[in-house]
């Protein structure tokens, strides 16, 4: 099953549940009408939250750049001794 079908099925199931709620009037209709808006808003909040959390846990590692510089110096030294051209043009 293509992934889009899965997502559409999910959306249709939710819609069906919502229509069911509208029909049965288990909760006041005025509230039920607002549910899709709540749904979209909470989806947006979820997205923003995930981006925020992701950004907070996204490490910057300056020490890695320093280590790499050391590795580069070491590698150049070794290769030069063995006749490999390590000049830049």
């Amino acid at each position: 099953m293509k992934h889009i079908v899965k997502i559409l099925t999910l959306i249709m199931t939710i819609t069906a549940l919502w229509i069911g709620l509208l029909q049965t009037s288990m909760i006041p209709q005025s509230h039920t009408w607002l549910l899709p808006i709540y749904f979209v808003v909470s989806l947006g909040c979820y997205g923003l939250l995930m981006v925020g959390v992701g950004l907070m846990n996204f490490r910057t590692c300056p020490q890695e750049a320093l280590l790499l510089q050391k590795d580069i110096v070491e590698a150049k030294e070794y290769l030069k001794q063995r006749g490999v051209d390590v000049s830049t043009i």
Partner: protein
Amino acid sequence: MDEQHQKGKDKYSIIVPTYNERLNIGLIVYLLFKHLRDVDFEIIVVDDGSPDGTQDVVKQLQKVYGEDRILLRARPRKLGLGTAYIHGMKHASGNFVVIMDADLSHHPKYLPSFIRKQKETGADIVTGTRYVKGGGVHGWTLMRKLTSRGANVLAQTLLWPGVSDLTGSFRLYRKSALEDIISRCVTKGYVFQMEMIVRASRKGYHIEEVPITFVDRVYGSSKLGGSEIVQYLKGVVYLLVTT
């Protein structure tokens, strides 16, 4: 499970596509030999006709390390990343294939953890991720980080790939898995990396992740412009309807 694996003798073919990497290719070869001492591996350099003499440097490296360890499989001109992997794979004698960039943003020191993870879990694919504990980046502006995370959340929400880093390209593949997946992929650029891992995930391949740090040596060089974002969004939609 293939024959080589049963004998417990895994060989790793490391495919490095290059274009004008005369300095970096030497550095990466040195670092690979430094960090993979007890591992049977070969390096396959797929050079797309670099005018800067990358191929001459590779030939010098072959004299130092041996022509059986470093294979130069050049192509006449720039022909794209996907076909570079296919080209390299044709010459690969290992039962595992490693794919990495030549610009040192992927450090060879992480490869032992890829190999260990594969042995521990028996995974078909081990992919490097910048987004988990122990991973990270260097040289990215806040804006770049924000776009990256936003793009990631979007893809995670829509595609449910089961992998945290979709666009990273530092990966270890069981050769048979890579051959199978790559033949189904049609996109280019970094959407191609995303397509590979999503298709692999859909086909039920066992995918594991290890943290890596990604170092951009020229600060702020890695920018995501408007056209890249459009390309990315198209890629997500394409994967939604085809996988």
